[in-house]
């Protein structure tokens, strides 16, 4: 079981708070539209979910080793 951060893109304001706290540099805000998480780099620490002012990042459990 692995945890991955998942963003509700429709509600993202693209402020970039998540980018700043990510210890792995797994989050980016391409073209200023919404934040995107690179799941291959995400370690599921949950820092971005805590920081997100709109609280729209959740951690999802993943079974497969991807």
């Amino acid at each position: 079981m692995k945890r991955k951060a998942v963003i509700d893109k429709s509600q993202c304001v693209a402020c970039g708070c998540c980018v700043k706290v990510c210890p792995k540099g797994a989050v980016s805000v391409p073209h200023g539209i919404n934040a995107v998480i690179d799941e291959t780099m995400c370690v599921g620490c949950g820092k971005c979910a805590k920081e997100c002012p709109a609280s729209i990042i959740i951690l999802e459990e993943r079974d497969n080793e991807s």
Partner: protein
Amino acid sequence: MKAKKKWYDHLWIFSLTYLILGFVNILFAWLGMICFIVPLVISIGWGNKAYCNKFCGRGQLFSMLGGHFGLSRKKDMPKWMKSKYFRYGFLIFFFTMFFIMLWNTYLVFAGQRPLGQKIKLLWTFKVPWHWAYHGTLFSDGVAQFAFGFYSIMLTSTILGFVTMMLFKPRSWCVYCPMGTMTQLICKAKNVTKSQTKAE
């Protein structure tokens, strides 16, 4: 593992200094134009939100006060507050008030109204601010704009501070009119870009 601090991680100093300078000499309020023009230039020119993501000093200030200094409850903000209706509604309201402020400035420029040495907080409460006014070299309108603009900056700081305490540190970012506007610009730019690509 914490990323090394970059030069722009200290721009909160600029925001704090700006707020203090408004108490010293109101004409410094003009510097706040930077916070309006730079995000627009970045979003129109480069099509990204680097201003919000990296340079916004106010965001850094809230993040510091709410995070490191523990002034935030760090609770989720109510759903309606992050809805598009509220965000776009606040953007429209904010800019309507901004243009009313510009109109009042024009009236002083045109000599139809005397200079009001007051700060209007939360678009309602008039606070005497004459002690930060030491005359202007140019027209009274220049000072009127400073009073009006500083009113906007202080009002939005107060709103941001209150939501910082109640909800997450950077709750202001969710309904910040500049943030909403630059995101809209970025979205529009991306639509036109993908359209030209398709053609």
